[in-house]
């Protein structure tokens, strides 16, 4: 990965469901598959627990990218949670794009508990994308800036 602007280190929030993606991230860890430290993971029981407000909050507080990972469609531990999540995020991301938070700053990925490689690949490509987009300035609360 080429980091052009060394001084810019993005803040990236990753919401991972407990049953698939969080376990996938654990597998990436125990397999020593690296991805940039800019990614910080928040554990939620299911991708359907992710309230769009959380994502707006993250951008407001200065996040440069937010990614949400869940079980593959059809494999949700709670049967249908990821379908709700997918619909919600599609709407939210298009709205965010409309107000200037580019589509590249938001992403939904399905990562199973067995896909450590996919988790690390996903995070690497997402972080690379955020580096190419640079700092997010559109939704930030000015009071939160240093």
């Amino acid at each position, binding site marked *: 990965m080429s980091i052009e602007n060394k001084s810019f280190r993005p*803040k990236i*929030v990753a919401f991972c469901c*407990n*049953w*698939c993606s*969080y*376990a996938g*991230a*654990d597998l*990436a*860890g*125990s397999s*020593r*598959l*690296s*991805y940039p*430290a800019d990614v*910080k*993971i*928040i*554990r*939620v*029981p*299911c991708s*359907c*627990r*992710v*309230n*769009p*407000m*959380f994502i707006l*909050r*993250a951008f407001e*507080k*200065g*996040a440069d990218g937010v990614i949400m990972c869940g*079980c593959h469609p*059809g*494999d*949700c*531990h*709670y*049967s*249908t*949670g990821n379908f*709700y999540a997918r619909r*919600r995020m599609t709407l939210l991301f298009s709205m965010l794009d409309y107000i200037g938070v580019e589509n590249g700053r938001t992403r939904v990925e399905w990562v*199973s*508990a*067995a*896909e450590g490689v996919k988790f*690390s690949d996903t995070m690497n490509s997402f972080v690379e994308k955020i580096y190419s987009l640079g700092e997010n300035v559109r939704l930030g609360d000015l009071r*939160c800036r240093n």
Partner: protein
Amino acid sequence: MQRIGVFVCHCGSNIAATVDVSKVAEMALMEPGVVHAEDYQYMCSEAGQAKIADAIHEKKLTGIVVCSCSPRMHEATFRKAAERAGLNPYMVEIANIREHCSWIHKDMEEATKKAVILMRAAVAKVNLNTPLQPGESRVTKRALIIGGGIAGIQTALDIADAGYEVDIVEKTPSIGGRMSQLDKTFPTLDCSACILTPKMVEASAHEKIKIYTYSEVENVSGFVGDFTVDIRKKARSVDMDKCTGCGVCQEKCPSKKAPSEFNRGLNNRSAIYTPFAQAIPNVPVIDREACIKFKTGKCGICSKVCQAGAIDYEQKDEIITEKYGAIVVATGFDTINLDKYDEYAYSQSKDVITSLELERVMNAAGPTHGHLERLSDGKAPKEMVFIQCVGSRCSDDRGKPYCSKICCMYTAKHAMLIRDKYPDVNVTVFYIDVRTPGKNFDEFYRRAVEQYGVNYIKGQVGKVIPQPNGKLLVQGSDLLDNRQILKEADMVVLATAIEPNPDVRKIATMLTASIDTNNFLTEAHAKLRPVESPTAGIFLSGVCQGPKDIPETVAQAGAAAVKAIGLLAKDKLMTNPCTAHSDELLCNGCSTCENVCPYGAITYEDKEVNDHGIREVRRLAVVNSALCQGCGACTVACPSGAMDLQGFSNRQIIAEVDAICR
């Protein structure tokens, strides 16, 4: 204000080598609410847990953050430790600084920075934690086994012997599974039927075991301890109570053109059939696709010849609904379809067969009555070639990326048996690697080479070329001699890759058990919880979890049984207290949450509320915490923000977001 203690684990050098643990502890003291912070070599050890207990007492802690490995690993450990010290276990949060930090980063400064942030997020969350009380749920003391092969039979026997009721659901007309199709077993060469049949009989005679054959699981609801399962008993067209198993119907059936599933399609069976002589139950089924009576309305011979009057053409599928406390998946495997490997001429020549087909050819009850002969012309072969790794270890999209594990050993077995019974037959095995880890396994393979003179050639085969004279030309590599070989053979046997039974995906979805990219069921932990699914109450037995041979399958079946027994032995289970609850003053009774709840846990009640002095009766959402599984779908769907999830509340998650973006 909480009084929080932060405990940073070195995990030997696993964390401490990349994260400055003392720095993390030092930074923790600057966080709001933190009154105590320390680091220690192994927090999960007895001494480490004692440190937590001591700090709880001395510093009067109300909340704990452990910066260590994944919560999926030791959250339960630390919660129990806190509980023993008198703290509510749900006041403990884990910051995952091993799997999500030290193991994936190399730069100490970066990793330490990230660990601090993860610690802060956990502290921010604990500041908002509240003590939670788990509820209780009952345990139905009966287990369901899906699949009646050796794995399912062994698990059923072990659970039943412990005194619990067990039901086996088997899709085919008989229990026995793949093992019943095998001729001999490695590495002792004892006959498969001789060791399996007694177990089948034992299972069917066991007073605690009920067997549903020709049946499939149709629907599963509920949760650990209290599953409700619909089982479809397919119409057998034969009354199980009346049938005496005399077999006359099969003999007289005029429709004998249906390919025998048991003999892998190498010969045909009648439309009314039992798959094999030792079938349990020894009651035939009518294959309605092949039956003349069902196709044309005429015939009815089986009904006429049946003295017991057991034939029932009107029989219909039956749905049985039953409650279970534990479910064991034992769905087994099949060999892969060879359509994508036509270079081995499987579809072009009858004399190219799979190893499982060879088992049937070698078996006295098989299509050739146990005589080794070519299926094209019935002639005895003189040259046999075995090809290993057909479809295994393939990273292209034709085959499977994994090693099927059993092929090296059964090929050595086949080679040895053939050389023993037919010393004039030459046997050549093309292999990539011979993998024989297992007790007496390598000795077995060496015997095939040294004692029986089986010719092992290191190299894969590129193409099998049928010749006009009926022979097969095998074009392969000899990598050790560095030459290309053209070998004429009479029969070619393909060690075909195995894959999980294709039905397993459907079953996993019903059970919400996770499954990997190869359709093997995932274990709760690859090393420490190998027979449990991450979904509570679901256990794994046999090849549905990964390739294994018979002894390994039997061992795993026993282990799965013990885990199921451990569950069934409990009278009550603690339920997860991280459930949804609704704020009465915010709820407007709109029913949105009810619609998204997958468990039917939300109902509505008319209730009097006191809204800032205004007393009125309102329609309000009520969550049944025994049914709620805590997914959180309702919390997001709720338009008024009344619904929240305990343990993962809106405020807690937002606090984590804030801490990370700070």
